């Protein structure tokens, strides 16, 4: 990087902070802090949802898979695209129909009572803190490798900027900054691919310079090796807190549906582009750390000036995942823990203060995680394990079918979580089967057994009583 790159990088950060701070004008209540007042149109739902899932794992981590193994990973990670599109068709519109919902905890409490709300909130907060840590690590890594900033300082710098605007403007700042981050990354990164492809001599030249199996999708995967990660991407990130929040921010049901479907389709295009960059990088920047292949391509093929802008945008897209999870964690804390159990009559002003304070706390926790989780993709998969086997299916079932017994939710969460934890941490994934699978099976057995045992009960204990009935 030369002087003009540094100027462009600083310019990018200044514009980003300006957009984040400017958004504070729209912040008047907790509705604004958590769900941008239900005012976000479909095109912006598409951009903000995409900017949220395009983080370190889905840029550098995915390019690394292309660099080290070719196109095959596309057919695993493509499960995420299928999932997001299906959520857009079937689930996101249903979530948006809950007019007063800010979080998944709101929906779980509405159907399964306060204990289900609390459990959902706690799991969501842990999940969010974990992801904030993973992406903090990634931005520290990029700033270290490109700008020479020591890792710990890079983590603190990037997390500091995010915490600043996420705490000040809440969801409004998150959405507005996501627009900038999405636009820059989805224009600049494809340019890197086209320039790299041209340099390597087009597809014909590329094929001559890469191992033959790089373009054969299933050359290295047995069924068992394929199905575990495929299910991980299919279910692991389904409706994680900030993605579900994108359904709530939408102006209406149609906007939620259109935004999610567009994002699901686009995600496949994005995955292809970054994996292809990894493949093209194989002959052009040989013998580098696979995680650094994408950054090396940016440095090699973009003109000076644009390099600084794009490196900043890569850091910021990583940060845009971080701001989404920060805001989501804070919103879950407020809605699922603080307000129902500590201060039900909290004022709007008090609510925003609590949201801001918890955003800052989450940022600090994230930095601690950043120093303790070793690998980007593996870190994501590790945290997936906690979410899918507990919350997803009970949520999807009640979103589509309102007749489940109120007792189902808590038992499904507890059994799903216990079996997953035992499978992974006590039995160490026997037969190579991911903990997600037995966890989901246990979750569903508990759900349906409890449903059939309790569906006719008239008296409902207070902790299980649906909030819809009060």
């Amino acid at each position, binding site marked *: 990087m030369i002087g003009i790159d540094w100027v462009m990088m600083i310019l990018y950060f200044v514009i980003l902070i300006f*957009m984040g701070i*400017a*958004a504070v*004008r*729209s912040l008047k209540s907790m509705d604004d802090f958590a769900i941008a007042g239900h*005012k*976000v*149109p479909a*095109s*912006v739902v*598409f*951009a903000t949802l995409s900017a949220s899932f395009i983080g370190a794992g889905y840029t550098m981590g995915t390019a690394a898979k292309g660099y080290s193994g070719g*196109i095959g990973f596309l057919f695993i990670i493509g499960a995420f695209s299928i999932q997001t599109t299906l959520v857009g068709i079937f689930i996101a519109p249903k979530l948006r129909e809950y007019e007063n919902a800010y979080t998944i905890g709101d929906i779980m409490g509405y159907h399964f009572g306060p204990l289900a709300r609390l459990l959902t909130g706690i799991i969501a907060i842990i999940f969010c803190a974990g992801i904030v840590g993973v992406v903090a690590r990634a931005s520290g890594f990029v700033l270290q490798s490109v700008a020479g900033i020591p890792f710990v300082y890079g983590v603190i710098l990037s997390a500091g900027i995010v915490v600043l605007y996420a705490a000040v403007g809440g969801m*409004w700042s998150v959405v*507005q900054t996501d*627009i900038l981050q*999405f*636009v*820059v990354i*989805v*224009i600049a*990164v*494809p*340019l890197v*691919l*086209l320039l790299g*492809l041209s340099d390597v001599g087009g*597809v014909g030249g590329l094929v001559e310079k890469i191992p033959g199996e790089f*373009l054969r999708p299933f050359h290295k995967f047995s069924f068992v090796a394929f199905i575990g990660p495929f299910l991980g991407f299919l279910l692991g990130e389904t409706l994680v807190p900030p993605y579900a929040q994108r359904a709530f921010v939408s102006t209406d049901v149609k906007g939620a549906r259109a935004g999610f479907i567009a994002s699901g389709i*686009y995600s496949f*295009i*994005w995955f*292809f*582009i970054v994996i*292809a960059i990894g493949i093209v990088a194989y002959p052009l920047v040989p013998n580098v750390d696979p995680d650094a292949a994408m950054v090396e391509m940016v440095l090699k093929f973009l003109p000076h000036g644009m390099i600084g802008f794009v490196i900043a945008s890569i850091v910021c897209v990583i940060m845009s995942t971080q701001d989404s999870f920060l805001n989501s964690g804070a919103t879950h804390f407020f809605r699922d823990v603080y307000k129902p159990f500590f201060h039900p009559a909290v004022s709007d002003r008090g609510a925003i203060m609590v949201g801001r304070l918890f955003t800052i706390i989450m940022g600090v926790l994230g930095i601690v995680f950043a120093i303790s989780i070793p690998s980007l993709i593996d870190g994501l998969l590790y945290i997936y394990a906690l979410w899918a086997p507990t919350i997803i299916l009970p949520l999807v079932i009640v979103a589509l079918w309102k007749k489940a017994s109120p007792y189902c939710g808590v038992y499904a969460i507890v059994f799903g979580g216990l079996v997953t934890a035992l499978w992974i941490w006590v039995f160490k994934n026997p037969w190579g089967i991911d903990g997600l699978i037995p966890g989901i099976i246990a979750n569903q057995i508990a759900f349906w057994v409890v449903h059939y045992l309790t569906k006719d009960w008239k008296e409902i204990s207070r902790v299980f009583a649906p909030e819809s009935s009060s």
Partner: protein
Amino acid sequence: MFTFAVYVFPIVSIIAGVYVIIRGFTFFYRTSLAGE
């Protein structure tokens, strides 16, 4: 298939970016700057 996608997908992505420039920054102007 790879040959088709490796040229078409980047162009689709750039078009998506341009679309969001128009719609997204209009939204930003309307809500954050004009204060509607």
